[in-house]
């Protein structure tokens, strides 16, 4: 191959520059490793900026009764007990320290009266728990981590005379293939958007922190970067994915105007008093409280309204039920003909709070609706409906080390699986990416230490093959063969939106799997839609497409296999949660280019953690055999 490739050597390469990636990179650099950050966009633009509500951490600043055990319990309940318990435990224990650490990097959270970090209520959290900055917490997080990376670069500049001596950001760079030698990570190949130049990274440890998969759906809150790159890279490298059937559809995305369909309206609109009404004007959530939650939620509007000012003596409003319940309720109302013409329901805060309070509490929301839709949320209701928001499933990792089954490959943040089980609580993703981002960076550094001098060498034939794959869409464009990538993408989105959406059915999933298989040859022969290598979005999409396809196949296959409804997976033909299925994780791997699905038992929770729950509550999740087993051990 005559192709010119720019070579780089690092100890740790972090793919992804959102919260998890930056936190991992900071940790690896603090451990003294030469670290590269691969950012698909410009530095500081990652999808983390979109997180609004906050970072969940049981600091107990607002309610001193809060602690890690309560947080752990809430997380397991939210995930319907399918979570990797060890991840949920580490997350609940370490989140406060990770949030406090951000203050030492310069973060400025909203404050309590006594000057501590303020914490707000959020769906599924028993106490006010989310550290926040108005409704732009994600921006604060990414900027803080970005500025911490810069401060480390300044230290290196002072010490070595070079900002990039030990930590460098490769902006607008995409990794297309991971390279393995003798089954271990040896490096990665990618390209940079600015020039189309190809890059080879030689590194023994790689952290995947690429976020989610939402761009496979038509209606999504996710940005263009969310094409399942890390999921697909992991599969192709021989790692496994779990829980891919669980996708979170955020209950309240904007449905009007159409151009911003999918963009989400933070849950804090409901936490601060916003209510959901159908077109009859009815506050319908009272009709959708499932039995498992019955005793925790208000039964009358009067009680629900008292809760905002007196939480000790009243139960929560049903608008604050976990996200999947709210999403399903809205879906049911729309299907019953009580939705708006655009296919949503009304979320109203204007009749509930004075305009100045809305402006203070929800400034970005106000701003967003005013500018994008010319809707004044202090004067009129919003029009909202479910939007594809978050994938619970992801790369199967070891809880403590964030290591995948491939030596040298780690994963953290949305791209990893297990932490959130079948459904994620709002606020748990920002804390997740801090806790496991740090762990991934720490253990990637330790892994390189353990390797010592015995670093796997990149094989030239692998590099050549990766380059050929990367350039193939351009080669086809030059030859004038292959389809327009946008057409294939839109077809893929239609399949996922229509057949693997929020409510799933057997025959639709079977049709989806068949249609996705038919898309495979089209994706494999797609062209760039232009021959230029310099910032050519058609080329970028053509490469992202194969990632979207393989990840979509995992989701469709796992959704067909799991014959129950749980969290972010709802089967119309199996509407109930089945305790037998709680014991099973569905694991995806790639064999000969085909997605293979296997069943694997969910790890059994430690006894001390089980004892945090009432026996009566465990009954909702566990099989009679498991419960009997529990009793005998008592």
């Amino acid at each position, binding site marked *: 191959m005559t192709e010119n490739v720019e070579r780089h050597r690092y100890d740790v390469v972090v793919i992804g520059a959102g919260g998890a990636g930056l936190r991992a990179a900071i940790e690896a650099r603090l451990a003294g490793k030469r670290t590269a950050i691969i950012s698909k966009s410009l530095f500081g*633009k990652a999808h983390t900026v979109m997180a609004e509500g906050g970072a969940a951490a049981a600091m107990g600043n607002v309610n001193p009764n809060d602690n890690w055990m309560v947080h752990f319990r809430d997380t397991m309940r939210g995930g319907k007990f399918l979570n990797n318990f060890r991840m949920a435990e580490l997350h609940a224990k370490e989140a406060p320290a990770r949030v406090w650490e951000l203050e*030492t990097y310069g973060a400025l959270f909203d*404050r309590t009266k006594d000057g501590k970090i303020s914490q707000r209520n959020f769906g599924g959290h028993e106490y006010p728990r989310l550290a926040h900055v108005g409704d732009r917490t994600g921006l604060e997080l990414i900027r803080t981590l970005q500025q911490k990376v810069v401060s480390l670069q*300044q230290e290196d500049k002072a010490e070595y005379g070079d900002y990039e001596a030990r930590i460098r950001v490769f902006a607008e760079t995409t990794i297309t293939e991971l390279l393995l030698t003798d089954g271990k990570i040896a490096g990665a190949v990618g390209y940079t958007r600015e020039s189309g130049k190809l890059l080879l990274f030689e590194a023994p440890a790689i952290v995947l922190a690429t976020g989610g998969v939402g761009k496979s759906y038509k209606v999504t809150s996710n940005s*263009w970067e969310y094409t399942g790159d890390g999921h697909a890279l992991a599969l192709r490298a021989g790692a496994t994915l779990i829980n891919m059937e669980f996708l979170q559809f955020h209950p309240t995305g904007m449905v*009007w*105007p159409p*151009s911003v369909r999918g963009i989400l309206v933070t849950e804090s609109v409901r936490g601060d008093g916003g209510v959901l009404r159908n077109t009859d004007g009815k506050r319908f959530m009272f009709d959708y409280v499932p039995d498992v939650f019955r005793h925790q939620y208000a039964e009358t509007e009067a009680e629900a309204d008292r809760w905002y000012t007196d939480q000790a003596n009243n139960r929560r409003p049903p608008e604050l039920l976990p996200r999947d319940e709210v999403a399903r309720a809205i879906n049911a109302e729309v299907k019953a003909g009580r939705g708006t013409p655009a296919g949503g329901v009304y979320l109203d805060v204007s009749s509930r709070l004075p305009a100045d309070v809305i402006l203070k509490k929800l400034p970005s929301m106000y701003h967003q609706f005013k500018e994008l839709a010319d809707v004044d949320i202090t004067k009129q209701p919003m029009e909202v409906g479910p939007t594809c928001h978050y994938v619970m499933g992801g790369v199967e990792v070891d809880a403590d080390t964030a290591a995948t089954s491939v030596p040298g490959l780690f994963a953290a943040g949305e791209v990893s699986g297990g932490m959130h089980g079948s459904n994620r609580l709002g606020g748990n993703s920002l804390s997740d990416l801090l806790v496991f981002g740090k762990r991934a960076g720490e253990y990637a550094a330790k892994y390189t230490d353990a390797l010592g001098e015995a670093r796997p060498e990149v094989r030239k034939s692998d590099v050549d093959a990766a380059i050929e794959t990367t350039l193939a869409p351009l080669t086809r464009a030059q030859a004038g063969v292959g389809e327009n990538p946008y057409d294939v993408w839109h077809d893929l989105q239609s399949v996922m939106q229509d057949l693997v959406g929020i409510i799933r059915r057997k025959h639709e999933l079977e049709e989806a799997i068949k249609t996705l298989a038919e898309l495979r040859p089209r994706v494999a022969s797609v062209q760039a839609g232009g021959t230029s290598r*310099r910032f050519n979005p*058609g080329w970028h999409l053509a490469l992202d497409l194969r990632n979207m396809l393989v990840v979509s196949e995992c989701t469709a296959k796992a959704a067909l296999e799991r014959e129950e409804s749980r969290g972010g997976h709802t089967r119309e033909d199996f509407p109930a949660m089945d305790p037998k299925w709680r014991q099973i994780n569905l694991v995806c791997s790639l064999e000969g280019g085909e997605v293979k699905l296997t069943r694997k038992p969910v790890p059994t929770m430690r006894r001390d953690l089980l004892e945090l729950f009432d026996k009566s509550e465990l009954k909702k999740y566990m099989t009679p055999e498991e419960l009997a087993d529990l009793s005998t051990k008592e």
Partner: protein
Amino acid sequence: MALHHFRIWRGDGDGGALADFDVEVNEGEVVLDVIHRLQATQAPDLAVRWNCKAGKCGSCSMEINGKPRLGCMTRMSTFDPAETITITPLRTFPVIRDLVTDVSYNYQKARELPAFAPPPGLAPGEYRMKQVDVDRSQEFRKCIECYLCQNTCHVVRDHEENKPAFAGPRFFIRAAELDMHPLDARTDRKEFAKEEQGLGYCNITKCCTEVCPEHIHITDNAIIPMKERVVDNRYDPLVWLGRKIFRRDQLAAASVPGPGAAPTLDQDGRMPVREATFDKAGAASPFGEDVKFPLPTDEIDYQPHQPIDPGSEKH
């Protein structure tokens, strides 16, 4: 649905031209939607940056009918269907391709500004700050780094020669944010802004504030207070003594040359009052005093230019 006429600049650093497109526009769409439709139907390789499409990430900065704006925040309903919409890249930064420019200048300036200095003696979790004391810095932390302010600022727009010495409005608010941070341990933020960031170049034409999509009061709340403090400090005897005791390189780590052509203080040792109070005290807006947007279609054009220092850092 209506057909709109668009002119979009296409090309790279070697040159280019405005290309004409007729494209369908649906109710409720924004300019970025239209660009996406063009990519999907007429120009698959049309280069544009974007991420969140919700005005939160600051990626899709461009000049629409001559005015620096975010593509995702510009509603099509604000245009007349008969109107030609002209889109050009940000003029202050070198073009890479089509609507994408090389904004590395900003990342370089970000690196030259000393980071938050944690207060000694306070462990994580021990930070205590009043909301009223963090409000001011929080306003500046709303910044989404779209760099529209940097692009608009006439100190560097069409003045490549000022770039080495001038950090620009985005980094003046960063300096102000740290200056006003209740627990930042550094005390030389204002000095640094004056000596190393080229704060003095700014003559408060408020163009930056005008284009800020986050409506941050860049001039009133950051630049003017920083300028006033610089004046105060220069003549504060203790600070004066500090300046005598410490070398300049101890006051600030970065090695950028100081602003040569910065406005000087008057004979009384004060900044001219009119500069701090007048709405448009200094030079005219980069667009000219009496320019009204949108600019007439035939007056908008774009010429790529090369940076003065082609070896400047890129990532």
